């Protein structure tokens, strides 16, 4: 919210014997104010010094007026403008005479609307500037002739200075949602005055001298003269005041009101509307003026809207309204005596009763509407006004009279009639405050007198508090304060958060990562050491990816996505990784090694409300010929780094598609794993539990997901990390080392293609028993001689015994056992050279 320094200080009164607030603050005085506002939580977003307007426009006295031969509409005028000799000007207006004082825009002046004044010659006469109307200076709407100034206006003096238009300081404040009182100049002043050493004055401001003497009497009676308020539903408005005024209407100080409104970001419209807006900014009470002639029955009422009811608001839009249905609150309307809507309460007035130049009598409505209704209406209709913003946060239900008085002052008007409905004053909230609780929350105790000094200048009333507890009466403009903790925050705020002190906490726990958290860090560090970069993906992805990746079943959709690209919860990390691949390929980085640890989601299980959410590891790499191979090696090493993880890969037989489905079905949340290259993929089994997929993306998937930018093969590993929890976390126990030299035994076998290398190694290991320290594959080949369905696998067996070297006879026996077991279990044939 924007406020003006000059406006704010009108509400500051010096304490007895102290200095009044400075009207032209020095930078350090301004800093004091900014600090005070910040430390109270009314955060200063910016401070702007706006220079006085109308530079180059001076007061001039008309010295001579001459007709110009042949010209009907212009005359030649000489004016005194403080220079030695009179200045020559050509002027089209006729409403002035010699001796009048008028505004004179000198050459070089820039008038509102970026209108630059230059020397011109018209009909042979030189014009060294322009004599101005009030409209040309944007001081009023009067453009009928020159603005005639009072006779005491100093000739040659700056017009702005004479009119009291000084440089203004505009302070932009960010007001928190819980501080409706601070959405007004007076509210900010009330809160900040004590910090700056001033007393808040409530009856200040311009026009305060204007008479409104009968107002108080009228308001004190429940109704005076004619009725202005008809049927009112007190559930739809907690309090409403209406006042009737008779024109003509003129602001007491139009120059100041217009300039202030303009600097606060509002347009000047008419004296009545300007006064209404001024009161809203100053007091925080929105008001709405109606053209009384347009109100049937010359009165207003308030009720809930009916479903489908229509109202044309003053912006010309036709609005379809909604009623209240139980907790689902709807719109509230202001109606005339016929119950026809004439305004959308708290949001915007109706088009039919809008104030125009012809308006002669006005009904002003000042009300307090329920916050939730206004919030709902303004949100539903996408219609946020200055008024609705204030009602949403809460308007002081007791402010109407104060605001009405102010409205009267600004227009020097006395209402012809005033009427009201609803309780007055609205009962106050009282909160019990335990002094011990203050210390318990803030860490510091406060004496009751201290509390009074902090709270009472801001409108709170602190009771006697003879014991340890005191009653605090909350002012009606602070609807946010309802419990003890709220009052304690007020105490802290006015004492100053920074003066409450600091203390270092002492946790009773020893801080450490959980084993799972350590695993996650290990995985990241390992992959980084292998050249992988970590990517970050959002939970929301494009649903089109689901089809490309071959995911079955429906996705969980966002009901209000920002775009189709991010509209469903991701079921696999693959789409994020492929998007990153495409992004980088488009930037000529097509060799890519990426990983992510992130959440994936699938449909809620059973009666669960929330989706099934699991953390997965996704690893992607590009490779010219075989994308899966580097990832298999990586997975094997990762298992070593994490320890106690036995990793197997189960690969479907190349002839049986049914097995693919069966293996995928064995994984957690089927339908959430991308389809991979049929011949180069399998699923990962960790310590006997299926928990992931590994292999190479289908060439078509990569093509579709990367706009054909990637020619390499793309490997993909995706693991459900809950598998980390299924292992034995007891520390590894060291094994005794042999003192005897080990022996290596190389054996090659002819096998069916469907027999995996892992099966062979396992079988060999089993045949060798404890003597085999390791069994590793070192050669694979196929040949015509072997035929299309057979291949040769060669393994190296390291044999070592703790008791002796391995003897020739042991060796021969082992070879025999291996040969037999591979033949019987795998149908393999040992190749003898």
């Amino acid at each position, binding site marked *: 919210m924007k406020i003006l320094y000059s406006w704010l200080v009108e509400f500051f009164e010096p304490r007895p014997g102290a200095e009044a607030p400075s009207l032209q603050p020095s930078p350090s005085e301004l800093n004091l104010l900014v600090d005070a506002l910040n*430390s109270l939580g009314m955060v200063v977003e910016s401070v702007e010094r706006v220079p006085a307007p109308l530079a180059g426009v001076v007061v001039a006295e008309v010295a001579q007026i001459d007709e110009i031969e042949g010209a009907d509409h212009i005359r030649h005028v000489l004016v005194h403008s403080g220079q030695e000799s009179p200045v020559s000007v050509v002027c089209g207006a006729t409403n002035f005479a010699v001796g009048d004082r008028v505004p004179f825009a000198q050459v070089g002046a820039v008038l509102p609307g970026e209108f630059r004044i230059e020397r011109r010659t018209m009909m042979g006469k030189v014009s060294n500037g322009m004599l101005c109307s009030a409209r040309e200076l944007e001081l009023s709407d009067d453009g009928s002739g020159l603005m005639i100034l009072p006779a005491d206006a100093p000739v040659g003096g700056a017009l702005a200075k004479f009119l009291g238009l000084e440089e203004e300081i505009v302070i932009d404040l960010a007001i*928190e*949602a*819980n501080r409706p009182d601070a959405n007004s100049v007076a509210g900010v002043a009330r809160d900040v005055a004590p910090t700056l050493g001033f007393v808040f004055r409530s009856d200040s401001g311009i026009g305060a001298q204007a008479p409104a003497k009968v107002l108080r009497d009228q308001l004190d009676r429940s109704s005076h003269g004619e009725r202005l308020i008809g049927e009112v539903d007190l559930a739809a408005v907690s309090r409403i005041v209406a006042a009737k005024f008779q024109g003509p209407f003129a602001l007491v100080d139009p120059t100041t009101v217009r300039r202030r409104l303009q600097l606060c970001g509002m347009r000047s419209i008419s004296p009545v509307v300007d006064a209404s807006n001024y009161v809203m900014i100053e007091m925080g009470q929105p008001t709405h003026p109606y053209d009384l002639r347009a109100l049937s029955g010359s009165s207003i009422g308030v009720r809930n809207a009916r479903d489908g009811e229509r109202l044309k608001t003053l912006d010309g839009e036709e609005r379809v309204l909604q009623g209240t249905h139980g907790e689902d609150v709807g719109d509230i309307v202001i109606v005339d005596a016929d119950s026809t809507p004439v305004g959308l309460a708290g949001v915007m007035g109706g088009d039919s009763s809008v104030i125009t130049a012809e308006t002669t009598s006005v009904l002003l409505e000042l009300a307090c509407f329920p916050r*939730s209704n206004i*919030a*709902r209406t303004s949100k539903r209709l996408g219609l946020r006004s200055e008024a609705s913003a204030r009602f*949403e946060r809460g308007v002081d239900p007791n402010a109407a009279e104060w605001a009405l008085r102010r409205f009267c002052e600004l227009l020097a008007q006395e209402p012809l009639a005033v009427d009201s409905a609803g309780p007055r004053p609205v009962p106050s909230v009282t909160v019990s405050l335990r002094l011990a609780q203050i*210390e*318990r*929350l*803030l*860490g*510091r105790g406060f004496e009751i007198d201290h509390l009074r000094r902090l709270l009472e200048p801001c409108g709170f009333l602190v009771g006697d508090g003879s014991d340890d507890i005191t009653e605090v009466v909350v002012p009606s403009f602070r609807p946010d304060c309802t*419990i003890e*903790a709220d009052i*304690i*925050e007020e105490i802290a705020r006015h004492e100053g*958060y*920074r003066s*409450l*002190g*600091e203390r270092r*906490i002492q*946790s009773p*726990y*020893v*801080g*450490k*990562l*959980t084993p799972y*958290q350590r695993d996650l*860090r290990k995985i*990241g*560090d390992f992959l*980084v*050491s292998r*050249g*992988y*970069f*970590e990517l*970050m993906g*959002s*939970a*929301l992805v494009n649903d089109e990816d689901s089809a490309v990746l071959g995911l079955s079943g429906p996705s*969980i*959709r*966002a*009901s*209000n*996505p920002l775009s189709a690209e991010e509209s469903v919860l991701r079921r696999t990390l693959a789409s*994020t990784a492929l998007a990153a691949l495409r*992004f980088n390929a488009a*930037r000529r980085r097509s060799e890519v*090694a990426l990983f992510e640890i992130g*959440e994936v989601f699938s449909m809620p299980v059973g009666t669960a*409300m*929330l*989706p099934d*959410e699991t953390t997965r590891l996704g690893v992607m790499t590009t490779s010219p010929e075989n994308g899966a191979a580097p990832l298999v090696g990586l997975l094997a090493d990762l298992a070593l780094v994490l320890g106690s993880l036995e990793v197997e890969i189960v690969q479907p037989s190349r002839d049986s598609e049914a097995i693919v489905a069966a293996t995928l079905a064995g994984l957690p949340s089927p339908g959430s794993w991308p389809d991979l290259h049929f011949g180069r993929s399998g699923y990962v089994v960790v310590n006997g539990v299926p928990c992931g997929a590994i292999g190479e993306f289908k060439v078509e998937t990569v093509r579709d997901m990367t706009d054909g930018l990637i020619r390499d093969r793309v490997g993909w590993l995706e693991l459900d990390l809950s598998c980390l929890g299924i292992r034995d976390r007891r520390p590894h126990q060291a094994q005794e080392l042999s003192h005897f030299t080990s022996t290596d035994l190389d054996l090659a076998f002819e096998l069916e293609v469907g027999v995996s290398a892992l099966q062979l190694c396992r079988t060999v290991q089993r045949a060798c028993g404890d003597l085999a320290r390791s069994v590793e594959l070192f050669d694979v080949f196929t040949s015509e001689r072997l035929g299309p369905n057979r291949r040769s696998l060669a393994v190296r067996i390291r044999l070592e015994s703790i008791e002796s070297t391995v003897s020739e006879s042991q060796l021969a026996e082992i070879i025999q056992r291996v040969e037999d077991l591979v033949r019987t279990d795998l149908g393999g044939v040992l190749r003898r050279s």
Partner: protein
Amino acid sequence: MAGSDVNPGSLREFLAALESLRSSFDEAPLAPEEALRATEGRFLAKGGEIALLSRSLGRLSQDDRREAGSALQAFRARVTETLSTQRRYLESLASLERERQERYDLTEDLVRERRAAVGALNVVTQTRYALEDLFVGMGFSIETGPEVESEWYNFEALNVAKYHPARDAQDSFFLELGEPGSVVLRTQTSPVQIRLLERGVLPIYAVIPGKVFRRDTPDARHTPSFHQIEGLVVDEHITFQDLAGTVSGFTKAYFGQEISARLRPAYFPFTEPSAEFEITCTICLGSGCRTCSGVGWIELGGCGMVHPNVFRSVGVDPERWSGFAFGFGIERLAQMKHGLADMRVLLDNDLRFLSQFRG
């Protein structure tokens, strides 16, 4: 050859022969290696000159023999020493020559085209780990929770009223699950506070890092998903002073002694009193610059004393327990620490960006 045909019978003759041997050694060639080997053979071999001369020692008187023997011994030592020094010298010369031949430009492989052998954690993860480590050092545990939450955990239990603007569909992504508006991508890590309190293990000293979602169109300072880290301390006798001390202690530990923190009033539904915490601008160190809009301070996050309604919503007695919570954006911290001009760079996973954070 000076001494070979001499057969001295007296001490004087012996010493003269030795002297002559000495000068012939001084003239003997010590390089190249073959010559060195020849000289070694000539003087030190079994039938060499020194051995020959030592045979004549027997013909001298006992006293003379002692004198002559020790002179001969000294000479032998000198010859041995000289030859071995020379051998080492020649070897090192040869080795140097071989190494010169095997010259390799070590900078070739410093600049050779290759696939990066070292990757990097995302800068967000790096920042998160650094923060986690700090709090672990202060005796905090690290806790996490689901990214998709029910409306109860994300709003209701946190005292966010039904019509609070924070619940607006403008700001949150809701999911098509259950009743409309009942399941949401969490907008903050705070629902994990509720889950921790529900677990009922008190006291709590925890930090909660994680991904959160806001319905913001991406711009230089906002992305629809980002990360927060949130702290929750619940114990007996926890006060606002503890909150201020923790925020200030963390700030100094993370940013350094020259950066301090301060609190100013703010509003959050789940804390009362609530505060925003600001830190000294890390760019200008408080003197005022463009980054901090000239004020010398930068807003970092929100904090406050846990609202009694939050305690009540999970059945924790606010008369016995008190606590504070604080939270801030991890990306924002990374942005300040690493000078990221535009947050959107974090969404692209651009390798040119990722590879800048290897160290």
